[in-house]
């Protein structure tokens, strides 16, 4: 039972990271109807920018952890958001009215560009950082000596995720931008007729998605203590799996799916085999699509002739 609880905590933390990435997928899919294949790499870029900012700040002699964290979050969100904006501008906007495969292939190309760009710019080796947030709480210690740990970094990850989700939900449901986004999701032509700037709204969608992915990258960096240029690919597919599992297009679904994937992966590693954890996650994707193509919270897609 103790082991189970510990894995539950680990799974929820991992799931929060996946959920943050999954929101980017699901938002873009909801509005533009394409899989932003490069989103996993945007997450990776976010991790790298967080790492570099962190390194620069530490070398200036700054020691207050909350200040460092705040600056790192803001800088990596801002720059990664600009990456998201640029990607949409270069690779997707010219293809908005092209045939359906075109943006997907362009996205795959963009994903290669980003992966290899960071390999060329930052080298192929794994970049570790010393733990920034240490310590934690012992929740429970059983008779046979097994300890349930809740580390501070896990608390930080979960709280950051909750705060971001709250801001994001407010943004989508209460602001002008959110209303525009929901309008574009339903009918772009009609939204444009009613004075919504569709291009700008789509750009903003990519910007927000990239900013959330940047935070996920930072959380990954803090939690695992390393980044490398290839981490975006697998994380991206898993986050996409999460988005599909939750019902693509549905924002709470993305978070729910993220948590589910995180839990499945953690429990699979804990009780079965670590080697096959990715196989488990991908198999889930296939199984979900077969039996529940609309996901947990998705709406069925009606096909018209």
């Amino acid at each position: 039972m103790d082991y189970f609880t510990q894995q539950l905590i680990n799974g929820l933390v991992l799931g929060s990271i996946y959920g943050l990435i999954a929101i980017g997928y699901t938002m873009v899919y909801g509005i533009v109807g394409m899989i932003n294949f490069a989103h996993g790499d945007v997450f990776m870029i976010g991790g790298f920018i967080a790492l570099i900012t962190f390194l620069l700040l530490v070398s200036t002699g700054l020691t207050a952890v909350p200040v460092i964290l705040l600056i790192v979050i803001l800088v990596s969100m801002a720059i990664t958001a600009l990456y998201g904006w640029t990607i949409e501008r270069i690779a997707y906007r010219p293809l908005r009215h092209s045939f359906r495969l075109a943006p997907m292939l362009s996205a795959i190309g963009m994903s290669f560009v980003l992966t290899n760009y960071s390999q060329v710019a930052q080298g192929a080796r794994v970049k570790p950082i010393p733990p920034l947030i240490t310590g934690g709480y012992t929740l429970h210690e059983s008779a046979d000596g097994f300890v349930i740990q809740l580390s501070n970094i896990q608390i930080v990850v979960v709280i950051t995720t909750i705060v971001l989700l709250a801001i994001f939900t407010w943004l989508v449901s209460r602001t002008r931008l959110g209303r525009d986004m929901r309008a574009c999701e339903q009918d772009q032509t009609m939204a444009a007729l009613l004075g919504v700037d569709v291009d700008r709204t789509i750009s903003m969608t990519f910007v927000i998605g990239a900013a959330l992915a940047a935070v996920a990258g930072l959380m990954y960096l803090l939690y695992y203590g390393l980044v490398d240029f290839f981490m975006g690919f697998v994380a991206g597919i898993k986050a996409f799996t999460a988005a599909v599992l939750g019902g693509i297009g549905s924002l709470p679904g993305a978070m729910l799916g993220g948590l589910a994937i995180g839990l499945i992966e953690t429990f699979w590693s804990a009780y079965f085999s670590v080697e096959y954890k990715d196989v488990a996650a991908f198999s889930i994707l296939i199984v979900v699509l077969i039996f529940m193509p609309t996901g947990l919270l998705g709406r069925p897609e009606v096909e018209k002739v």
Partner: protein
Amino acid sequence: MTAIPHETTHASRTAGIAYILKKSLISALVALVLFSLMVGVRTEAGSDGQLTYWTRFGEVAALVAVVFGGSIVIELLRQWIGPNGTDSLVPPAVRSGMSFLGRYLAPALLIFTFLVPVIFYDQRYILDLAILVLTYVMLGWGLNVVVGLAGLLDLGYVAFYAVGAYSYALLATNFGWSFWICLPLAGTLAAFWGVLLGFPVLRLRGDYLAIVTLAFGEIIRLVIINWQSLTGGPNGVSSIPRPSFFGIPLDNSDNGLAARLGIEYSPTHRIVFLFYVILALALLTNWVTIRLRRLPIGRAWEALREDEVACRALGINTTTTKLTAFATGAMFGGFAGAFFATRQGFISPESFTFQESALVLAIVVLGGMGSQLGVALAALAMIGGFELFRGLENYRMLVFGMAMVLIMIWRPRGLIGHRAPTVYLTKAKAISSDLVKEGHG
């Protein structure tokens, strides 16, 4: 596009220089922010695990300058060429020349390909490259059945390539079976896996299908890596037997082909033999595809690509149609995989990454999806282009990715962006592919 108000064009013409400069300046600023940290600060883990960094402002400045200059050039080109499509600019004389070329290009290429080992007999490098190109031509034609004809976007094609390669490698190293027995087996096994993948994804469409096939490809690769007792894991399978000339080995021994024919042995014999094997396999793929297109099943594939709902309404069994497309494509992938294993003599999971799938898919899309000649030309261009960047190993995929994006923007329909219908009343009229939708299936 033609109905641009007069005032607007006039205004944009007069404000030309200032407008271009402003736009380029913004691009340069964006580039400055993008590259500032990622390029400007290079991090590296030191020997003690401590991260160090050094700055590279020169590189950032150079990149920003390139972006600034590049965006000025692009803006100027855009103003000069204008918003008109390039299609209308091609004069009729050039067009008829192109169609003349198109008619004789394929036979000419085929004859040239047959003669490659004769012309380049002494240049081992060119022969190896030609074999590589032909392997990708074959893979492209195989995937073309799934993507180009049936319109099912498959991002995990490399899985079947892997199944074929490992089938031959394991059968040959464990049981000592010859290449010519294993080749059909490898194809059959790959086709079986194609059906296995086909079943669950029958109901999926477009993007979902793409991502599931991608997941499938990754599952196969991960299983190969982790099932060490069977596949040797990341170490791969080595000392895979070379193919024999129908039982006669191509080596320096007394009963080798060279000794039997009474000619001097040369290692090039094997290369030339391999070249003709893959050429035959590729032509087989092409021939089968062309024949299938004229059969009801091929017509059903093309109908499925154009409109699945209409297909169902007409009573076409979409289940068998999709499954046969997957199985046929997978089978050719399996053949190519078996050939790859016997040519390399060593295979490992490294050869079957998502990059390979994307490369083959890029070949099919660049070739114009459904056009056999286009796929062959695209394979030549892609693999040849890859060779040009051989020295710059790291930049190769970067350039490949950029090329993929640019091709999609410039010619989303590929090099040969129209297709002739296989069924017609009086004369074949090529349909511009802008008029058909695809990738929905």
